[in-house]
C-alpha cells in the first residue's frame, strides 16, 4: 500500500489525470463541458463495473441497474430531504440491494454464468416494474415515480454551506474528480493486501478457500462496493440532467456498460475509462449524424470486441506499441 502510493506509476497517473481534469474547462465550450460531465459519469460506471467484473471476477451483467437504483434513490431522497441526503441514499440503497442479492447468490454458491443471467434478469424486471409505476399511487413523499415518464425536476447537488447549487463548471469538476478518485482508488485497491486476496479468489477460488480465505465473503464485499460506486454515478447522472428515467434499467444501457469495459480492456485499469469515453463519444456522434441505428452499431461493436479483440483495445494497443518499439530498436541498431 505504502509502496504503491509513492510508486512512480501511481504518481504519474495522479498528475496526468489531475492535469486533464483541471485543464479541460480551460479549452472547452460550456456545451462540450456539459457533455464531458456525462462522459465522466459514464467513466465512473465503467470503473465500477470493471472493479466488480474485471478485478473481482463477478459476472455482473446487470451492473447498470445499480446506476439506476442510485439515480432513483437520489431523485426521491433529494426531492424530499435535499441533495446531501440524496447522495447518501444513492450510495446506501444500491449497496444494501447488492448485499441482499449477493448474499443469496454467493453464499448459495450460484455459478458464475447463472449469476450473470440472474443479475441481467433483475435489471429487466426492475425496468418493467419502474415502467408500471405511472399511477399516482407510486408516490414517495413529494416524489412521484412517474413510470415510463421518469422523475423530472430532480434537484441539483448543493453543498450544505453554499447558497447556490453547483453550476455547470462545478458539476463537471465534481464528476471528473470523482471519476479520477475511483480510478486511483481501484489502482490502490488491487495492490493492497485485501485486493490481492480478491484477485486470488478470482484466479482460483478453491485454492483461496483451501488457504483459509472465504471466497463468498470477499465476493460480497467487492460486489457491494461496486454497487455503491455505480449508485453514486447514477446520482450524479440524475443531478446532471435533472432527470432520471427507467431507461437506466434497460437491457441496452446494461449492454453499453459491458461494451465500454470489454472494448477498453476488461481487468485493465485505464481500459474501461478509455472504452467508456470512446464508445459514448461514438454513440453520441452516431445520434447526431443519424448514419446507423445505435443498436446495430453497439451490437456489431460487441461482437467484434468478443471475437476479434478479446482482451480489449488498451492491451491490443499496448502490444502494437511494443512491437513498433522493437521494430524501431532493430532499425536503430
Amino acid at each position, binding site marked *: 500500500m505504502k509502496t504503491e502510493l509513492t510508486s512512480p506509476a501511481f504518481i504519474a497517473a495522479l498528475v496526468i489525470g489531475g492535469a486533464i481534469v483541471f485543464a479541460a474547462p480551460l479549452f472547452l465550450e460550456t456545451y462540450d463541458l456539459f457533455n464531458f460531465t456525462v462522459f465522466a459519469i459514464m467513466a465512473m460506471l465503467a470503473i465500477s463495473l470493471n472493479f466488480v467484473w474485471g478485478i473481482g471476477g463477478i*459476472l455482473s*451483467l446487470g451492473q447498470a441497474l445499480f446506476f439506476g437504483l442510485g439515480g432513483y434513490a437520489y431523485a426521491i431522497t433529494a426531492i424530499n430531504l435535499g441533495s446531501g441526503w440524496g447522495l447518501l441514499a444513492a450510495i446506501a440503497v444500491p449497496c444494501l440491494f447488492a448485499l441482499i*442479492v449477493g448474499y*443469496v*447468490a454467493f*453464499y*448459495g*454458491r*450460484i*455459478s*458464475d*454464468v*447463472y449469476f*450473470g*443471467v*440472474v443479475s*441481467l*434478469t*433483475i435489471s*429487466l*424486471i426492475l*425496468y*418493467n*416494474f419502474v415502467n*408500471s409505476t405511472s399511477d399516482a399511487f407510486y408516490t414517495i413523499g413529494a416524489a412521484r415515480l412517474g413510470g415510463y415518464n421518469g422523475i423530472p425536476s430532480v434537484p441539483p447537488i448543493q453543498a450544505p454551506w453554499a447558497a447556490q447549487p453547483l453550476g455547470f463548471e462545478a458539476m463537471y469538476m465534481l464528476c471528473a474528480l470523482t471519476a479520477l478518485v475511483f480510478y486511483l482508488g481501484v489502482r490502490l485497491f488491487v495492490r493492497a493486501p485485501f485486493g490481492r486476496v480478491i484477485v486470488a479468489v478470482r484466479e482460483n477460488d478453491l485454492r483461496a478457500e483451501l488457504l483459509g480465505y472465504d471466497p463468498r465473503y470477499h465476493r460480497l464485499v467487492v460486489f457491494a462496493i461496486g454497487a455503491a460506486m455505480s449508485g453514486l454515478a447514477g446520482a450524479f447522472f440524475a443531478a446532471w440532467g435533472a432527470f432520471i428515467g427507467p431507461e437506466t434499467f*434497460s*437491457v*441496452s444501457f446494461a*449492454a453499453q456498460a*459491458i461494451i465500454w469495459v*470489454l472494448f477498453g480492456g476488461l481487468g485493465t485499469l485505464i481500459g474501461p475509462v478509455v472504452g467508456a469515453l470512446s464508445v459514448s463519444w461514438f454513440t453520441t456522434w452516431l445520434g447526431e449524424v443519424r448514419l446507423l*441505428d*445505435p*443498436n*446495430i*452499431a*453497439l*451490437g*456489431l*461493436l*460487441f*461482437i467484434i*470486441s*468478443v*471475437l476479434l479483440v*478479446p482482451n480489449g483495445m488498451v492491451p491490443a494497443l499496448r502490444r502494437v506499441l511494443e512491437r513498433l518499439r522493437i521494430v524501431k530498436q532493430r532499425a536503430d541498431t
Partner: protein
Amino acid sequence: MDIIALSGINIVYAVASLFLLAAGLSIIFGMMGVINLAHGEFLMLGGFAFVLSVNAGIDFWISMFIVAPLVVMFIGMVMERLIVRHLYGRTVETILATWGVSLFLIGVTSVTLGYQQLGVSAPLGSVEIGDYRIGGYTFFIIGLAFAVLAFLYAILRWSSFGLKARGTMQSASTAATLGVNVGYVYSATFGLGAAISGLAGAAFAPIAGVTPVSGLTYIGKAFITVIAGGPLPLIGTSTASLLLGFINAAVTAISTPVLGEIALLAAAILLLRLLPAGITRRFFRGGL
C-alpha cells in the same frame, strides 16, 4: 365455482406459456451449454415472420407452424455458423457475443420494420364458463405447449439425431471418436432451438403483437425458467414452468402482472439458493 375453473385455466395457461417461451432457450442451453441472450430476438423474429406472412396472404396456421420456425431456424443456424461456433466452451464469451447479436437484431428490425406494433387478431372465438369468457386461443396455447413437449421428447428420445445429440451433450469428444459430426449436431441443435423459439414467438404474436423490442418482454421469464430448471432441457424446463407458472399466475391474480414477475424472480432466486445448479442437477440424473 366458475371463478375456480377460471383461475385453474389461468394457472395452466401461465405454466404453458412459460414452457413455450423457454423451450427453445432450454434446448440450446441444455444440449450445448450456450446461454443465448438473443433468445428474445428469436421470439421477436418469429412473431414478425408470422405476422408479415399472414399479412401477405399466407394461411394463418401455415405461417405459424412452417414459415416462422423455418425463418428463425435459418437465422439461428447462420448465427451459430458465424459466431457461436468460434466460442464453444467459452461460456462467458458466448453470452457476450449473443448479447451483441441481440442488440444487432433489435437495431436491424427497427430500421427495416419501424417501431410500430404489428399484429394479427387471434382466431378460435371464445368459450363461456358461467359469466366469464375465455378466448379459445388460450386453450390453443395450452395444447401447443403439450404438443411441443411431446415433439421434443420424441425427437430427442427416438430419432437418430436425438441419439447423436444426447451423446454429444454427454461427451463431445467421445461422440466425435464414434464418427458423429459434432459440428453438424451443434448446428442442428441450435437450429432446432431457434425453430421452437420462432414457433413460440409466432404463437404469442396474436396476443401481444410484435415490435422490435418484444423480445425484451419475454426474455426475463425465459431466463428464470431455464436457470431454475437446470441443465436437463425438458424435465428441467417443464418442472420449473410448473412451479414458477403457478406462482406467477397466483400472484398476478391477486396483484398486478409486474408483481407477478417479481414474485417469479424472487421464487427462482430462492430456489437457486437451495439448489444452486437448478432443479435437475439435484433431483434427476441422465434423462432429458
